[in-house]
């Protein structure tokens, strides 16, 4: 039963108020893309034990999507941040590096 801080309404939200949205920062491939790229976009997902970036929606709150960085092994939450970015902010990545030196996620570290 997680608690995540919604950055859009500045409330700590109970997991029962949220809806999960899977992996963050997927790059969309549309018509004209190769089969490999499209397959990766549609089906290729990280499955890390450790640092992970996810999408969540403040479903029974402000209705906005946001991102969360979480450790899948301990449920430690490193931070939540805007949904309107294509990668986690530098500041958050630094926090994670401090707590989990040597972390890797896709091509981020």
């Amino acid at each position: 039963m997680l608690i995540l801080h919604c950055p859009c309404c500045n409330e700590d939200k109970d997991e029962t108020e949220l809806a999960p949205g899977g992996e963050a920062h997927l790059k969309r491939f549309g018509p004209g893309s190769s089969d490999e790229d499209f397959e990766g976009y549609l089906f290729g997902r990280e499955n890390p034990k450790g640092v992970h970036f996810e999408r969540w929606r403040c479903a029974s709150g402000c209705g906005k999507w946001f991102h969360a960085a979480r450790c899948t092994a301990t449920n430690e939450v490193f931070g939540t941040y805007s949904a309107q970015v294509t990668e986690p902010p530098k500041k958050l990545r630094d926090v994670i590096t401090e707590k989990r030196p040597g972390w890797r996620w896709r091509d981020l570290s």
Partner: protein
Amino acid sequence: MSTRLATGGRLIDRSKPVSFSFNGKKLKGVAGDTLSSALLANDQMLMGRSFKYHRPRSVVTSDGSEPNALFNLGREGTFEPNARGTVTELFDGLEAESQNHFPSLEFDVGAINTKLSRFLPAGFYYKMFIHPRPFWKHIYEPFIRKSAGLGKAPKARDVDTYEHFYAFCDLLIVGGGIAGLEAALEAGAAGLDVVLFEQTAHWGGRAPVDGAVIDGKQADAWVADALTQLDAMPNVKCRARTMGAGVYDHGYAIGYERLSDHAPGEDGPRHRLWRIRAKHIVTATGSIERPLSFAGNDVPGVVLASAARDYVVNWGVSLGDRTVVVTNNDDAYRTAIALKEAGLNVPVIIDARAGGGGSLAERAVAMGIRVENGKGIAKVKGGKRVTGVEICAQAGEGAALEEIACDVVAMSGGWSPVVHLWSHCGGKLSWDETHAMFKPDPVRGPIGADGKAFVTTAGAASGAMGTGDVLADAQAQAALAVKAVGGKPKTAKAAVVEEAEAAAMEPVWMMPQGASYKLRSKAWLDFQNDVKVSDVQLAAQEGFESVEHAKRYTTLGMATDQGKLSNINGLAVLAKELGTDIPSVGTTTFRPPYTPISMGAIAGEARGDIFQPLRKTPMHGWHDENGAHWEPVGHWRRPYCFLRDEESVEEAVNREVKNTRQALGLLDASTLGKVIVTGPDAGKFLDMMYTNMMSNLKVGRCRYGLMCSENGFLSDDGVVARIDEDTWLCHTTTGGADRIHGHMEEWLQTEWWDWKVYTANVTEQYAQVAVVGPNARKVLEKLGGMDVSAETLPFMAWADGTIGGFDCRAYRISFSGELSYEIAVPAAQGRAFWDALLEAGAEFGVMPYGTEALHIMRAEKGFIMIGDETDGTVIPQDLGLNWAISKKKEDFLGKRAQERMHMVSEDRWKLVGLETLDGSVIPDGAYAVGEGVNANGQRNMQGRVTSTYYSPTLDRGIAMGLIHKGPDRMGETVTFPKVDGGEVKAKIVSPIFYDPEGEKQNV
């Protein structure tokens, strides 16, 4: 015999008698009794039968860890099985029955199993009931079902109510013993918001029974003082009869409050489930005494040493006149002393330690109690009651040195901290060699959201033993907890405690150490599930070496008590058999709840009328009063049809279809989703959402649209209306409004966040009525107002105006193939508008129709239905909807996926109409069989039915289905086998059975 003593009993009020019954027999107890103490006071030692061998069973404990004294309580609407008598507070009129006996508790047929016990070893069921296979269903399964479980399942509806409560606090303290109280005093003084739970009705835990003296005060007085201080702190909330049941991620914890179990019939809920978010949790959950493994340790009268003194001190009940105490530690001497002080006979204390005990032992000797060091019990004599014990050398093999007559054996194998709540969310344990126990490892606690441990243990739960250690630990841990939530500890001065000087305990996992197989196969580990030392040894020999496997194979530690007494002894036996040490074997997983909680508490308020939200349209009341035969559609209830007089559902549906096609039908279409999409980029956005082009829709016009997921699969459909230059209104399916609105917002917020588009789900702002049939225009014109003529409001147009004085928006759209208007009015006007249509429509033969008539009429027209023709694997191209897929657009959601190899394959199953040769109706869900068989020898499939109905319009069965290369096979016949062995043959035809040219809707 067990009886009420003339004096004593700190928890009872002898002046208040309480009547209750056990197995139909009327008995008397007193206020403050538990069911167990009251039964013992009435010399009712026999309380139940064990699970496998139906052995006679009585209490072993005096608390929540009790494995044996389980009862069926109450009757009918208040019936509850597996209630532990030790924690059931007695009340006037309580009705209890013993469990697992036939025909009676005193004489039980199943007890024959105990004579057969050597044929019923560990894993017996797994070994016995495998072969021959055909026996399983008719012989083995009924047999196992009959013998499974102890209590009976309730049959009547629960008459009680339950509720939840959400609470938030800085610190949750679980356990109201002296450690929990001390921690609460510390945290309260530091200004924290504290919630303190105690599972029993009494505060102070064991300290008052054990005769602790704190700061010169008797424990009872110290506890009363502490409560007074806590009561004065507005930031501390104490709750008795509330058990900390579970600890979960991020400081979430469950509390189980039993409000009226002790006083049934009172107003209000029976249980309350506390759903707590705590910044930090302190578990001051105490410890549990362990049994010793000796032959006959399950005979009624063999109890934990702590329980024997609890019954005397708390309830003034003696279990018998002569109590033999057997121990491997000093604490059990307290029992001997308490019993002696109560005037009872303690013939001997058998101490397995060669060196004997410390200062308590000296005191016992001084009181004249005989103490035998280095000795053990070889076996207990007696069947339904202890009659004596054989004493032997602990180091030997069990040769009897002496037989001592007694009627109670009080045993103590040491104490284990209650680590359950610490462990629920991942707290790790370490092995304490000195006290032979697993205890919380403070540096490996459960991790919270901030990456730091959020649980701390205090007192005996940390592994502290004496009163002084317990209080010191509670104080220190509370200070740490205060710091953990950012507070400043104001540590008071340490308590001064008179402590007895204790000699070290010595682990005794088998008594005597070299017990023969005969003795080991009578030495119980798990009293509830009848698991003996020999069973665990057999499991290890057969290769069940993992503790989790051994548990499941032997049933050690399963069922209601979850091995609270048996686990550690079982682990020790397993470790010895495997030639390793206990920490290497490890423990089984501790899962919540700590002890069983009621299903009602979990459900909370969600039962009866408010089990689930039930969504109602503005016309719901009319439907309800006019024969609606309800159908659930998501959380909505929609009329399936309206029953009149004596007609059947089928007759009503046929009547509604015919009347709508011939005269005038009304459909409550309010449940259809309505989403406003507006902004400079709304057109561009909708072109991405829908497969067809929406940006070029003209203001005032409607277009049917399809929505796909990125996988290409059809997910929703509906009519889109362009309201103004920047604004569209998108209709969704009944179940789809929230989902589609969410889908739109997801793409806007997470992919195209720079597009200027706002959406709003306005589904419930409007009531919508479909006015359908040849007389549709007549009734609207009669009501008067806006021009609804074919010229002004042609097919697939919409307009705002008034009808019959109601502000409305009229859409010329049809899902039935008839002349049809869907009229939206503000929801609050919905019922009045509906009434006006009925009144005005009377002369035109108006009749409301339900969802089934709607389904039939759309199927007659070959219109697809999301959820019938689609199932999450169907693309629009499969349904012949290519006309609704834009070829001009470069991109839309699902377009790329629809170009994948499998999606463009010639071999897909595609939509066709199916006309049965004999006019019958193809059964729902039927599959069309093809040539040959598959690898499993089953007939190959070449399609399936998606919608199938009797068409009252055509007086024959009609269907749609997905058939392999269907549209290329017009005129071919396919075969659908039926469940009854018969088959239906159907010709592949166009899916449009009615008015293929659309002449009726476009008038």
